[in-house]
């Protein structure tokens, strides 16, 4: 089966996020005074094959732990979905 994983990575909340602060300041400057917080992170999309949904979940978690996210400074959320299979005929 083919899968598509969206990995949303954000700086851990206890960390100072100067990028988020800079964007927040710019939004305030444009008149968006209701903005209370902005956080800038990263979105990765990984397409891969795995025998089952459970195996795909384990595989993408391993990818995150070994390379894609740094647990010292980042949290991540994975949204995993099977890719639509080509329809035969």
């Amino acid at each position: 089966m083919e899968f598509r994983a969206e990995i949303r990575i954000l700086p851990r909340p206890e960390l100072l996020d100067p990028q988020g602060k800079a964007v927040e300041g710019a939004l305030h400057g444009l008149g968006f005074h209701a903005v209370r917080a902005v956080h800038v992170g990263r979105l990765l999309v990984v397409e891969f094959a795995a025998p089952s949904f459970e195996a795909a979940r384990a595989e993408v978690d391993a990818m995150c732990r070994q390379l894609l996210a740094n647990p010292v400074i980042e949290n991540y959320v994975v949204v995993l979905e099977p890719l639509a299979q080509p329809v035969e005929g």
Partner: protein
Amino acid sequence: MKVAIITFPGSNCDYDCWHAVRLVGGEPIYVDHRATDLGRVDAVILPGGFSYGDYLRAGAIASRAPIMRAVRAFAAEGGPVLGICNGFQILCEAGLLPGALLRNRSLRFRCHPCYVRVERTATPFTAACRPGQVLQMPVAHGEGRYYADEATLARLEAEGRIVFRYCTPGGEIREEANPNGSVAHVAGVCSEAGNVVGLMPHPERAAEAVLGSEDGLWLFRSLVDLLEGRLARSA
């Protein structure tokens, strides 16, 4: 005394390190990131630069390069390893040093001379220094804000593993002397055994008077003096 300088795609301080090692009488050799063996070397330097374009996170991809398995084994046996700037980021990403380097608080690339105070002399790269000695070396980084969580930082302080702190020319620890917002003004740390050291400032760019400072030579001289038996081994 042979010193391996690891070159990654995007390393740009490798020749500066080569030159600094030569200046103190060492024998530098380049080792490619794709190699799986360091050969017979006495020390390893991970030089500065922008390995893999700093993609994903600074140092993240380089820290998973084939040569890093050999560097890890060398460090585990007590071999001296020095990571400078991007090399420090790589060592943190590899888990050989604690913590991480984040985007500078100012969001600006900081490129100027700065001062650091030697907080620990029991490392292969500070053995020739006086405790509290002030060294002038340049910084050149966008992601140099050292971060470790409270528990890790408390442990580093308790174990005396902060090797360098940013300071004023007179050696005072002040907010204005900290170029990037590093926690506890940390400019460099070491491993538990003290043999792996990482720092953001560039000692190899402060290796000749014509460059504005020769203070960086203290790190290279410490290594050579220690390995050649002119200094007692304490780390």
